[in-house]
């Protein structure tokens, strides 16, 4: 049986890649995809510990995370399409209208 810690290590590694994606990439689409990757890494940890303690509650939490992620992607991509119509770019460095 594979140790839970290995799943946790894998999910930590995926999370780090997601963090790098959010900070390194410039396209808002890529930032969104990296956020999805981080959500998935967190989900993997939850499922691994659910299996460790044989408890169903963490899996239900993952179900809710997936639901919220779907809602978030729908709204986020709608916003992105609106911004693209106005500015003709998805570069997050150029989305600084509200900058003080």
């Amino acid at each position: 049986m594979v140790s839970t810690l290995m799943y946790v290590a894998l999910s930590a590694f995926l999370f780090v890649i997601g963090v790098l994606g959010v900070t390194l990439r410039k396209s808002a689409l890529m930032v969104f995809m990296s956020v999805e990757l981080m959500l998935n890494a967190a989900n993997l940890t939850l499922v691994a510990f659910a299996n460790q303690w044989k408890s169903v509650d963490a899996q239900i939490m993952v179900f809710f995370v997936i639901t919220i992620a779907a809602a978030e992607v729908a709204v986020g991509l709608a916003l992105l399409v609106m911004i693209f119509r106005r500015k003709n770019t998805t570069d997050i460095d150029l989305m600084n209208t509200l900058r003080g």
Partner: protein
Amino acid sequence: MDLLLFGIPALVAIVGAIAMLLSRNAVHSALYLLLNFAAISVLYLLLQAPFLFATQLIIYAGAIIVLFLFVVMLLGAERDEQAPHANPWQNRGAFVGGVLLLIELALLYVNNPGTIPIAANLNDGFAAPTEIAKALFTTHLLPFEIASFVLLTALIGVVVLHQRRS
């Protein structure tokens, strides 16, 4: 055998994630992300979560990635990253942050507190879809209703966002 079953999807997930990060083309990135999600769904199956395996494939691979691909192709923003970041410190900061997180991960292993306690309930079918449904519609009924409300709000929000204004 167990290690092989874990190792292959884990390797595919890592390769998919790194390829997503490095790919210049947003369509390729989305497809690598799909590979990563599929590998993670196989890991869910290994972790005795068949319901989440199906949910992951249907919602993430089937809906979210398709939405991403649709928006990328609709906008024609496949290669929308010409210039480097306006703030030159951002890339260096990202690498420092990534290395710090990996060091933290290594410390987790060095200071390994020993084995995690094993559950008293060793029933392998603890997360069968029927059990999930039972918990979802009894103990977690309120969050379930709130989730449906959140989805409805997102739906209305998207429609309002895309209304043509006079």
